[in-house]
């Protein structure tokens, strides 16, 4: 995360935040049920969210090689529509027009567009925010797509080009307030970079290979997160949660990744232990029986999830909990303790 100097608008204290595809997020409160973006206001953590919907977004009137402005707009519209189609989430957005403004300009407009950022050779796209640090209200958010990379809006994707709609779905997930999810597996390459082997969330910090259109589709983990921030209708009364702790030798583990498998539906939803007691909570779960698995955060850079100062413990072996967890309708499971052992 890059933090610029704060500025004041109409008596509110605002701060400019940046979230790139592979950069740091602020840890949210351990009572929160999903890794959300947040800011520190004094000694407390405030979750970022839009207080007024629909979000009005502008699209740059300048395209990029291989993508016209109109094609860009249509892909962005589809990406927003993907998030709006979540039946348990009230998030909404509306196209407000084309603009010559560039993303990341402080202009009180939510702008999506291209920018040439060759120095960010590992960053496909990034989302920036202007927020009210007292309330966590998102005042403005921009998304840029880096023209250092080659882009495509082809219906079936294009070999060698990144699918713009897929990357837009990920970035719009940040725009609405979601952090990164760790439901994925990677391998370390000789270059020192990580390559995704597989994932089951569009909010994984590392993108699928160029040409893939997989991240156009939201997964259960993404849907749970969006619904948790913007619950719609009877979401809270129909879905449940799992909470507990991850401990090692009796001590809480911070930053453990916990995944819940819905035995009936096969859905995977995850979250992290977010305090020194190892407390975690996973919400947005359909009623049923679950198997829990805890693993260290070792499939992506830690600063893709937590601020650098966070003391994430990765010195433990993955473990599956040896008891079933029952998620009731509209309620929480009995608390569980997942005990892990050092590597």
């Amino acid at each position, binding site marked *: 995360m890059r933090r610029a100097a704060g500025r004041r608008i109409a008596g509110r204290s605002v701060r400019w935040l940046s979230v790139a595809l592979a950069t740091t997020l602020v840890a949210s409160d351990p009572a929160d049920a999903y890794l959300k973006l947040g800011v520190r206001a004094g000694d407390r953590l405030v979750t970022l969210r839009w207080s007024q919907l629909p979000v009005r977004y502008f699209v740059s009137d300048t395209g990029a090689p291989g993508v016209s402005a109109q094609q860009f707009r249509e892909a962005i519209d589809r990406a927003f529509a993907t998030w709006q189609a979540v039946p348990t989430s009230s998030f909404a957005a509306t196209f407000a027009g084309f603009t010559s403004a560039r993303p990341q300009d402080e202009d009180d407009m939510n702008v999506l567009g291209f920018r040439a950022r060759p120095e960010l050779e590992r960053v496909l796209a990034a989302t920036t925010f202007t927020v009210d640090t007292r309330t966590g209200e998102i005042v403005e958010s921009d998304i840029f797509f880096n023209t250092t990379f080659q882009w495509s809006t082809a219906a079936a994707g294009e070999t060698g080009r990144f699918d713009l709609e897929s990357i837009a779905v990920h970035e719009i997930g940040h725009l609405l307030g979601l952090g990164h999810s760790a439901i994925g597996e990677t391998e370390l390459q000789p270059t020192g970079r990580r390559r995704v*082997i597989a994932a089951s969330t569009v909010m994984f910090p590392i993108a699928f290979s160029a040409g893939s259109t997989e991240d156009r589709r939201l997964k259960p983990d993404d849907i749970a997160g969006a619904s948790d921030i913007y619950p719609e209708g009877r979401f809270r009364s129909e879905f449940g949660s799992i909470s507990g702790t991850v401990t090692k030798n009796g001590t809480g583990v911070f930053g453990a990744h916990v995944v819940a498998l819905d035995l009936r539906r096969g859905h995977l939803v995850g979250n992290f232990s977010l305090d020194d007691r190892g407390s975690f909570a996973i919400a947005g779960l359909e*009623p049923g*029986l679950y198997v829990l*698995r805890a693993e260290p955060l070792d499939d992506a850079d830690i600063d893709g999830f937590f601020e650098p100062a966070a003391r994430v413990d990765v010195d433990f072996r993955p473990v599956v909990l040896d008891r079933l967890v029952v998620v009731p309708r509209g309620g929480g499971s009995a608390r569980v303790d997942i005990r892990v052992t050092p590597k």
Partner: protein
Amino acid sequence: MLAAVLGACVLWPASSAAQAPRRRLEVSGGALVQGGYELGTREATLVRNQPGGGSFTLFRTDSRVETAAGAELRVAYQLTRALAAEAGLTWIRPALRIRTSGDAENAPAVTARDRFSQYTIEGSIVLHLEPLAVGGAIPFVRAGAGHLRQLFDANTLVETGRAYHIGGGLTFWTGRGGRRLRGWGLRGDGRLYVLDGAFEVRARPRMYGAAGAAVIVAF
């Protein structure tokens, strides 16, 4: 052919050596053993980062409901001497066993086991085959269906389904009474159930067997 045999059993008078008492109502209660059954495999899968996608298995689960004992209560109303309409209530507390294995990062395999309560309210048609009685044992056949309810974790989760059954057994009338209490005896039977709904890993019917032994009283 089967209809002809059953029709003959309904109409043919039984010998006095193996006759059920004349009765309107039968009440029976006793023990039940329900057989286990497989629920299937569920894998925690991710989408592969390759052309065409494909699955990557993070870990695998195999689920089974284990054999368990319980109790049941039945009340039957005699429509004819041979044919009865019966209502039954069964209660059982089996264990659900989940075995995890094949973890992509070598998390140790574990077995989780959790008990749940299961109630079934069912209706049946019972046909007593007195002409086929042997040595005082009167055979019968039964078929029916019911509503099944599974309660997990102190009733915080309820799963419901439908259970269909067919089976048969033997009734031994060991004593005869007077005007009110017409008789008493013992009953043993076996059943095959087909379960639809309730907790499932794969959306498909499951089959399991059950056997019961009960004390029976006729009014």
